[in-house]
């Protein structure tokens, strides 16, 4: 009797082990490198910036049969902090990536989370988006010089709007610009709007003096002349608008809002190499060129350790900015 019961238990145990092993095989897809199923987490809602980039990358990878299918999941909450916490919790998961960007780096600080980017495994930086300095049609500011002069005279009197919350790119850019031209970031009057739409409204109605944001959502208003661009934040000018860079305008600041891909911490070197190779191959496809063109994204590819160093640098820089403002 005892023996039989023990036998049944052993059999059940063996079945469980076998079952979980085969389950691992299915999700991890270890057997066939060219046909892995991967999961991608996206830290904002469908249609948002990370979502567009993540889905475009996943589609390119799938269409070129670089691996199996992607299971994409939008994990919302606290500007990406919730998703970062999940990534941290899935330590060692060899089938997970997350699309993220500069905004997530800042959100982790403002939400006082421990899931910092420097703890994750860097895979690749994919694209960058320049920030633009926007003013309404009839604004007194004709150039960056005008803005800098007025801003320095009375820092608080210039109302700056952005399409992100404190810690997001549209917030970090004016703060870093203020610091560069010698204004205490704490004196900046920053108005946070819930995305590009409300920011456009405020600019068109001249409720604020300047708007700082990525230019994609403003193409229509820039084209019909109701909004003007004083400068863009990148190293070089962008084809999208006819505006000088900040450095040309005499402000020594290069700022870019980048997006990239991370993996959970604690994955094997082999798995990391696999992911880096996967996104490198993806980056070289014709479809990806087309996605970049279609979405007006600037290619800014960087992988592995170099991306890791870049993340480290961004992490520190954002932390410094936010610390000065008392936001961490």
């Amino acid at each position: 009797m005892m023996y039989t019961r023990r036998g049944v238990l052993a059999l059940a145990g063996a079945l469980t082990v076998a079952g979980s092993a085969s389950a691992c095989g299915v999700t991890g897809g270890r057997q066939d490198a060219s046909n892995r199923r991967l999961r991608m987490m996206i830290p904002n809602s469908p249609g948002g910036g990370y979502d567009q980039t993540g889905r475009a990358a996943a589609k390119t990878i799938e269409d070129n049969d670089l691996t199996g299918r992607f299971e994409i999941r939008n994990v919302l909450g606290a500007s990406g902090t919730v998703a970062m916490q999940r990534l941290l919790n899935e330590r060692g998961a060899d089938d997970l990536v997350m699309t993220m960007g500069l905004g997530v780096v800042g959100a982790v600080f403002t939400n006082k989370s421990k899931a910092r980017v420097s703890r994750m495994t860097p895979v690749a930086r994919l694209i960058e988006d320049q920030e633009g300095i926007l003013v309404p049609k009839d604004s007194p500011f004709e150039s960056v010089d005008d803005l800098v002069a007025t801003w320095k005279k009375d820092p608080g009197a210039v109302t700056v709007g952005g399409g992100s919350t404190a810690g997001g790119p549209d917030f970090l850019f004016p703060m870093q610009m203020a610091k560069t031209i010698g204004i205490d970031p704490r004196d900046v009057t920053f108005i946070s709007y819930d995305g590009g739409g409300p920011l456009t409204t405020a600019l068109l109605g001249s409720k604020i003096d300047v708007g700082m944001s990525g230019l994609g959502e403003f193409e229509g208003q820039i084209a019909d002349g109701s909004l003007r661009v004083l400068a863009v934040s990148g190293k070089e000018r962008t084809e999208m608008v006819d505006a000088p860079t900040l450095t040309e305008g005499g402000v020594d600041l290069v700022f870019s809002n980048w997006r990239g891909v991370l993996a959970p911490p604690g994955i094997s070197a082999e798995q990391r190499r696999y992911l880096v190779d996967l996104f490198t191959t993806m980056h070289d496809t014709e479809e990806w060129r087309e996605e970049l063109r279609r979405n007006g994204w600037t290619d800014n590819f960087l992988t592995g350790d170099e991306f890791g160093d870049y993340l480290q640098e961004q992490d520190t820089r954002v932390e410094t900015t936010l610390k000065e403002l008392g936001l961490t």
Partner: protein
Amino acid sequence: MDLLLEGFQTALTPTNLLFAVIGVLLGTMVGVLPGIGPAMTVALLLPITYNVSPSSAVIMFAGIYYGGMYGGSTTSILLNTPGESSSVVTAIEGNKMAKVGRASQALATAAIGSFVAGTIGTVLLVLLAPTVADVVVKLGAPSYFAIMLLALFAVTAVLGSSKLRGFVSLFLGLAIGLVGTTTGQARLTFGRPQLADGIDIVVVAVAIFAIGEALWVAAHLRRKPLEIIPVGQPWMSREDWGRSWKPWLRGTAYGFPFGALPAGGAEVPTFLSYITERKLSKRPEEFGKGAIEGVAGPEAANNASAAGTLVPLLAIGLPTTATAAVILLALQSYGIQPGPQLFSAEPELVWGLLASLFVANTLLLVLNLPMAPMWAKLLQIPRPYLYAGILFFASLGAYSVNFAAFDLGLLLVFGLLGLAMRRFGLPVLPLIIGVILGPRLEEQLSQALAISQGDVSTLWGEPVAVVVYLVIVLILVGMVASRLRGGNGPSGPGGDPEAGSDASTDRERLSA
């Protein structure tokens, strides 16, 4: 007019008609499910812009938008489970109607009201889009603050016969609205990042309405005899028509301008419409027990607001809701920029879209009106199964947003609150309004003061704001005057049966 006819030619090609049908059906389905809204659906369908012509895609997206506005009402009425924030108010009277066997009429007045409002809204859109858009950007945070304040003021009309209970409910709602980090400070988040973005109104409404009620029924199932829901007339009677048409028109008048305003939205006009109908009704005693006006008005308001949203979107490329923002994204991925030049640059697309809105409205009516009596039969399911189904459905909806168990916990906590509110006779409407208005009021106030750097005089610095404050003062004066004259003011005792009836049935239930 010729342009519109050409638009119909675009909209009525077999392909585009098919896309309109798909859009309307999809929209109705996602409208039904709490958690998944039209914005998310359109976003997930964005990849079709790779393969489909711009007109077809936009026509489908518009169908989803209108369908979503309508679909939410079906579950609101039948299951007390609003699928969208814009149909939360519909549940209040709609579900009461369903309980007395008038589900068909509620569904019908919602369908026809949506059709009427959507059609009028689309006509207004055609007429006004090119001109009105410039005006809406003139309104700033001070004006919105004043408008929201006026709306909050209107809540006093629905506090119920016990002012104390009404205010308790309102402040509970305002407190729930405080959760989040929108001000830069974490408030009431208990260190949970899941709470950082605040609590979704749909989760609160589903929990308070559906979960709260299911728990309440479960708690009383043994002690009370089964109420059989009578099978009513399948169609609207002449009296129902007579009571519905004015609320439809008034709802449209609320919904359209709010939709067109950048910070307007669809929720505020629905409850303003509800409150107005309650005030104007010749039978105020029916409110809280299933008054058809309370369904007709809000349902018209939410569809009209969807039409209004397209005004700034098409005219100046300004998205005022999440769905509009995603539609804008779709247009941009075709290289089309909405704005003043859109009407001349892409006449086929614009007029095709406008014509397809008429088509989508008609489709919604044709698809949904015959379904109303069929849906109403759903309520014949024995109560234990029906409520089990509602619980399952509500949980699925809450879980589907984020696939997080946390949201289910949230649903249960608010469900228990809903149960407690029923037990103690607290009216639910003030709470819902508090959750909707609180955060908006705060956002506009803090934005206005941030721009003016703390100078309070900015609050009456815009003409619209001044006018709205004058209206508030007039209402106040009117209330005080009528109180002095007869002692039975507009919000005086007897003017409102809801809380009273809740409380009295509560007592009956307890003694039973």
